[in-house]
């Protein structure tokens, strides 16, 4: 099997799975649907491994393979192929995407079992995996945009999965529209590049950019900033981030797969993929780095204040992606993608664990109500701990090595990049505190009613199924969990998936240890980033400082959280009082939703209303249509008035006319 075949199969299998489930939804009811979906993605992972092996067979300088099936459009100088591009970066991405997806599919087989839309769920989920693989395998910018929009659509389908909930559909439309804005940015950015270079395929694009543009030329910078808009929208970076917390309306496996492990990292992939262009437009790259740094700080502060379990993890995701965006924009490619990989492991794990807790709570997500689950759910507790330790970069966990490598590579560039470096470590402190606040509040303290029930072996059921976001009683049939839900870490599929991810979260650091000879990931990615023109001077001292600083922050942060939320009851309330204005700002998420509402949504709605109520009536149908048809009608009314029906009147007109004619000729003759 050639490498091209393997890669096309990686792409084809999830699509086939999705179509099979969608078209045969009447036959594949029950667990079978879940297994079909899982098998499709699992096979895709196998072929991703085959692709990896084949790629490693090639000599390092030939590790970029393009392959295309047919032309989508070839007209007027625009040539869009249905083609893929395989190199170490895209191979890493397909491995992460299909691997983590397989585990999350497995988890969902158990987790979603009592849901009415089981088959639909797996069909959507497979479609998402296909879209994401298309995004990372696409061989040109146009096909990338297609994959880009497909994942947006899949994300919308899955956020609105429980479509009877108005909160879910509102969150879905918000996510979709912001993502479309990102798509438009991407398209316009592509135009800026295409106008000068006339190609869309990656190979010629990367080789030609330095001839086509001057370094940092205004039109290239403008194009790359528009492309960044696309990356920001997809990766939930400021100010396009407001959809991500709302996207938690989707089922928890969706949050785990799409809104933590894979889709939201597409922006990171995009910047890494187009790195020759970004390096040639350093101003745009700097914009990306600064926005990443801002996002990681802002999201970290919000994570300290919100009380919804899933939303804390969502803001944490935002913040961690801020790190990655900052990293790849500042040319810390290996670090960025290393962090992307480990983050996929531990964040998926955290979401899965949170999903178990939420299910045990009968759908309640508020940290104010959850407490004391340590004894009730020991397995989930352990997984949550592993994920939390990795997220807070505790020494020797995977997150420790990846975050450190990322910040080290940023710091290596010196100059004002030290500012980003410092921001990274400040954000790191926030990360530790909000992570452990979440852990302590969930698992320590007095067990709540639901936890007590579970300790005695009963699973809590809400008296009426309700929507946790607005308290509305659920409509009919659709909605989760159903009256017979039976989860909470009990099925082996969920346990297997969580164990695998826990192991990866611990051992993921082996991909790249801070020693020269132990950096397999850096060597693997080398061919992709070999053409980088950014220098990374070696700085052993900085590396050591970073490792020490990181360990100190992790330990100190955990200690602080323990003191505030466990030993010292009311400690949190005192902090809130002391910094009341700040706390308000954080709880209200820096008022981003309100600002966007004021600046965009309301003016547009007002314009629409004005058009409907005023302009349409007076100008469009009043003056133009009414005027034109009015003229025609009044003209015909005048003519009609002459037709009196009076016979003698007509005769008089005839005679009168005749006399007039005769008179005229007589006068002329005279």
């Amino acid at each position, binding site marked *: 099997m050639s490498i091209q075949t393997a890669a096309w199969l990686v792409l084809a299998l999830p699509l086939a799975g999705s179509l099979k489930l969608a078209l045969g939804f009447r036959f594949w009811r029950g667990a079978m649907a879940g297994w079909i979906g899982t098998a499709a993605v699992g096979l895709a992972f196998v072929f991703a491994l085959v692709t990896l092996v084949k790629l490693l067979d090639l000599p390092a300088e030939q590790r970029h393979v393009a392959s295309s099936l047919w032309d989508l459009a070839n007209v007027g100088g625009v040539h869009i192929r249905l083609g893929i591009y395989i190199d170490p970066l895209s191979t890493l991405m397909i491995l992460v995407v299909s691997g983590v997806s397989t585990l999350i599919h497995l988890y969902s087989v158990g987790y979603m079992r009592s849901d009415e839309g089981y088959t639909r769920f797996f069909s959507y989920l497979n479609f998402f995996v296909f879209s994401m693989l298309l995004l990372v395998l696409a061989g040109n910018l146009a096909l990338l945009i297609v994959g880009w929009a497909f994942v947006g659509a899949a994300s919308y389908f899955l956020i609105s999965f429980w479509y009877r909930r108005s909160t879910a559909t509102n969150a879905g439309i918000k996510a979709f529209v912001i993502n479309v804005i990102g798509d438009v940015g991407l398209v316009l950015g592509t135009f800026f590049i295409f106008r000068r270079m006339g190609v869309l395929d990656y190979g010629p694009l990367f080789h030609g950019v330095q001839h086509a543009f001057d370094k940092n030329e205004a039109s290239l910078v403008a194009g790359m900033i528009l492309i960044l808009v696309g990356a920001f929208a997809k990766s939930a970076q400021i100010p396009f981030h407001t959809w991500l917390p709302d996207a938690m309306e989707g089922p928890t496996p969706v949050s785990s797969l799409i809104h933590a492990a894979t889709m939201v990292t597409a922006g990171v992939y995009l910047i890494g993929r187009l790195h020759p262009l970004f390096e040639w437009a350093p101003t745009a790259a700097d914009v990306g780095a600064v926005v990443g740094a801002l996002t990681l700080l802002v999201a970290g502060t919000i994570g300290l204040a919100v009380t919804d379990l899933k939303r804390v993890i969502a803001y944490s995701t935002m913040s961690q992606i801020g790190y990655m965006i900052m990293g790849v924009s500042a040319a810390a490619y290996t670090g960025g993608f290393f962090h992307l990989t480990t983050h996929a492991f531990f964040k998926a794990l955290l979401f899965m664990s949170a999903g178990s807790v939420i299910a045990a709570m009968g759908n309640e997500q508020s940290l104010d109500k959850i407490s004391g689950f340590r004894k009730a759910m020991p397995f989930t507790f352990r997984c949550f701990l592993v994920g939390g330790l990795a997220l807070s970069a505790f020494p020797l966990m995977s997150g420790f090595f990846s975050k450190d490598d990322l910040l080290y590579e940023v710091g290596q560039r010196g100059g004002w990049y030290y500012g980003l470096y410092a921001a990274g470590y400040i954000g790191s402190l926030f990360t530790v505190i909000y992570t452990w606040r979440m852990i302590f509040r969930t698992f320590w303290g007095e067990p709540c009613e639901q936890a007590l029930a579970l300790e005695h072996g009963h699973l809590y059921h809400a008296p009426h199924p309700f929507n946790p976001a607005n308290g509305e009683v659920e409509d009919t049939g659709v909605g989760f969990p159903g009256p017979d839900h039976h989860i909470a870490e009990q099925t082996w599929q969920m346990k297997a998936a969580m164990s695998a991810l826990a192991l990866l979260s611990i051992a993921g650091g082996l991909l790249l240890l801070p020693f020269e000879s132990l950096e397999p990931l850096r060597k693997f990615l080398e061919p992709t980033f070999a053409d980088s023109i950014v220098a990374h001077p070696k700085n052993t001292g900085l590396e050591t400082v970073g490792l020490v600083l990181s360990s100190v922050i992790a330990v100190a942060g955990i200690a602080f959280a323990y003191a505030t939320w466990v030993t010292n009851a009311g400690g949190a309330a005192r902090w809130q009082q002391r910094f009341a204005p700040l706390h308000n700002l954080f709880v209200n998420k820096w008022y981003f939703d309100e600002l966007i509402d004021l600046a965009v949504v309301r003016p547009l709605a007002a314009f629409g209303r004005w058009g409907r109520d005023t302009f349409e009536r007076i100008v469009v149908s009043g003056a133009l249509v009414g005027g034109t048809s009015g003229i025609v009608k009044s003209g015909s009314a005048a003519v009609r008035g002459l*037709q009196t029906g009076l016979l003698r009147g007509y005769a008089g007109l005839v005679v009168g006319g005749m006399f007039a004619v005769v008179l005229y000729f007589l006068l002329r003759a005279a």
Partner: protein
Amino acid sequence: MNIAWFLIVSALMFCLGAVGVLVRRNPLVILLCLELMLNAGNLALLGFSRMWGDGDGQIFALIVMVVAACEVAIGLGIIVALYRRRLPVDVDELRELHG
């Protein structure tokens, strides 16, 4: 005899007919006046025919007579139908075809 006399008589007959059409309201009388106007035309045609000394005018006059006969037949038919349906025999009342 001078052609002018023929034409003067013809014109007088025509005017009489036209005035009749305009002032009378009974369709029967209007029909009579129409005949008068047609015959005025016939007289003029015959006069011209005689003036030129060929038969063209006479042929026209014959055709006009045929048309007049048809007209009378249809017109009388309409008047009879009006009587049958007990409609007023007054052209000022019969104006349903107004615009």
